[in-house]
């Protein structure tokens, strides 16, 4: 089957279809294997949603459907709103800092100096370490007795930061580790975006007398907007369901300081054996991520079109 495209009609490379009346089976053949793989995964999803409307507990053999009781309990419980605050607080801070810092690093890497060249190759290193293990390494650096981070901060008078041990500094510490691991990834992504901007656009702007900041705003930003949105999407999705770092840092403590949705679900489901309640938390978590991502993806599609214009 031939692809019919009208000559010249290539909006961001998307083809125009053949006559709509012809049922196109080919794409289905291509997608089918992937869908088969996925259907196997849809069943556990369904099961999880089912659990969320039951009182399923690991220690009780009988599952009783309790309808929306778990959800009612969750929404009426102050712990849930605390958990929401932690989830959103962590995600928003991490993503915002990573975007800004990533942009700065990308701009710095997009130069010709020797340091920039070397760092382009090395900056990816933090992403190589599993978040669980990276967090443990950071914990050693932050140890009150022998932590090297405390040592390096002593000249600034910050010898005794409480890092993960205080309810006030635990979340920022977790965000810090998240920033450390993922900013390089953002930076490289944005670097790819910067590289794709045609130099002629900058030249034109310079001719018009634009300042560096002006050029950034008028040329760079719009051009890499799609990249920025993609970064936001990836990091937002991952940090809304963060677990490894929070768990490895303090197992969620002190108290319930780091109990975002996943950490709460871990304790409810596995430690307290309350699978029904834990599943309900996770369904809510997933719903939030789903809605936010839909918004981001449509925004991205729009930005892609605008950037190509």
């Amino acid at each position, binding site marked *: 089957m031939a692809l019919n495209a009208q000559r010249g009609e290539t909006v961001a490379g998307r083809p125009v279809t053949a006559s709509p009346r012809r049922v196109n089976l080919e794409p289905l053949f291509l997608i089918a294997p992937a869908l088969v793989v996925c259907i196997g995964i849809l069943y556990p999803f369904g099961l999880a949603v089912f659990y969320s409307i039951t009182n399923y507990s690991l220690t009780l053999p009988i599952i009783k459907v309790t309808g929306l009781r778990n959800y009612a309990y969750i929404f009426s419980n102050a712990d849930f709103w605390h958990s929401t605050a932690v989830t959103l607080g962590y995600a928003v801070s991490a993503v915002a800092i990573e975007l800004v810092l990533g942009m700065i690093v990308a701009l710095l890497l997009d130069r010709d100096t020797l340091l920039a060249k070397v760092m382009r190759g090395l900056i990816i290193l933090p992403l190589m370490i599993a978040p669980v293990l990276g967090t443990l390494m950071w914990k050693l650096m932050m140890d009150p007795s022998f932590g090297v981070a405390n040592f390096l901060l002593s000249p600034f008078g910050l010898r005794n930061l409480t890092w993960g*041990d*205080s309810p006030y500094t635990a979340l920022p510490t977790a965000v810090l580790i998240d920033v450390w691991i993922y900013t390089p990834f953002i930076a490289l992504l944005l670097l790819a975006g910067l590289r794709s901007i045609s130099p002629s656009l900058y030249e034109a702007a310079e001719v018009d007398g634009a300042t560096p900041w002006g050029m950034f705003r008028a040329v760079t930003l719009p051009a890499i907007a799609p990249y920025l949105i993609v970064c936001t999407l990836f990091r937002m999705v991952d940090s809304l369901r963060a677990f490894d770092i929070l768990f490895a840092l303090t197992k969620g403590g002190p108290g319930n300081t780091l109990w975002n949705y996943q950490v709460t679900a871990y304790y409810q489901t596995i430690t307290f054996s309350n699978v029904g309640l834990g599943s309900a938390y996770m369904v809510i978590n997933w719903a939030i991520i789903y809605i936010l991502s839909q918004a981001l993806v449509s925004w991205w599609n729009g930005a892609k079109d605008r950037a190509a214009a």
Partner: protein
Amino acid sequence: MDHIDELCASLAHGDTSRREFIAKASKAGLGAALTGTLLAMYSPSAQARENAQQLAANGPAGSFDHKKYAGRKVHLRLSKHPYVDALTPDIAKFKELTGIDVTYDITPEEQYFDKLKLGLSQKSSDFDVCMVGAYMTWEYGPAGWLEDLKPFIADANKTAPEFDAADIYPNVLKNDSWSGTPGDLPGTGDAKQWALPWGWEINVLTYRQDILKKHNLAVPRSYDEIATVAAKLKTLEPKLIPFLARGKLSWDTIHPGYLSAFNAYGAKDFDKSLKPTMNSPEAVAFTEKFMSILKDSGPPAGRWTGYGVFDMGAAMGAGDVVMYHDATSLGFFQDLPGASKVGGQGKMAWAPSPGKTGTTGSNIWVWSLGLNSGSASKDAAWLFMQWASGKEHLLYAATQHGHVDTVRKSVFNNPKYQARIAAHVGYSDTFRKQAPISAIYFTPQPLFFTETTNWAGTLQDIYSGKVTAKAGLDKLASDVSNELSQRGITK
């Protein structure tokens, strides 16, 4: 059967001696176990009854067939632990003795119980034997995930004579059993042996004797004395942490020193009807004392909540800590020559568990072996369990490896073991003193981990100043009460 009735009657009347009875029973084709049972039932005296039971257990010499399950497979689910490091090299011996093939998997301790719980709850047949703690059996036992071992122990066909259950410290064996009725204390009522003791931890005072000597400070025997000594150390040794305790958001923060002294102060976690009493006046008083010591003479401001058990051990080993009230073996490993900065130089020492006015019994943690109810080879698994917890292996593990804190009297008293721990100041004496008087002071109930995890969170909130001790413990008590009734355990 008539002549057997006659035989028994004649035994009961003393007309037939026990020896004659055995001979005649054997001729009649009765097996050793049945003979012993009958002897027990019909023997005239208590002593005789006991002899008969011994005979039933041992049978005619050498009658236990170790190879009866040869060819079977047994899989162990283990947590990363020095006891496991001591077990794995010795497994070959078990294989040789019984012909059973043993395999195992090892999970990091922090994640071990979560993973174990999932497997047990599914009655998974992937593993037969698992490591459990006594507290875990309070959730796993009533849920039907573990086998009651009492029938196994009592069955002479399943338990080899060298097992000698009486050699295990009786309070450990007892505390590793529970009836399953919430509110019943361990070992009381119709207690089921859901776990077999393997190693235990008594919570005692571990301290730097060189530092106390240097400043002429007496070894604290109560928490008042700890408070005084720690306060003095704060000024005398500003670079060190005078007193440390576990502080992480985890159930295990509660059970070592904290709960041992809690009990000594007359506080209890629940009353007989399972009403929470961890906010009683005595409980609040002790908690305030404990937290004030940590705040005034503990780790640098705000850092207490980061200390898990291994962090604490490492800190002692690095020479940063003067005293803590925790597991006997924790410090032991730091005190091995070359293991840490202060290790092996006689600087560390052990002393009995401090209480209210003097030393007290400690709350204990019992590492045990459990038999998965989903196992397909229970008898073979039991054969492994009795061997792993038997005299021979435990002696090997205690003298050649790190399986200290033994559950068997014979191993503890063995000169080789005593020689091994002699270098550790006060270790042997403290253990000897504490072993008979220690027990589990918690009230068993299935939501033990929910209760203690929340309790740890409460302590953390008290430490950070978020709540007062009374307010925090009141909230804890009411939360626990709600949880118990919501789960249908109390009305």
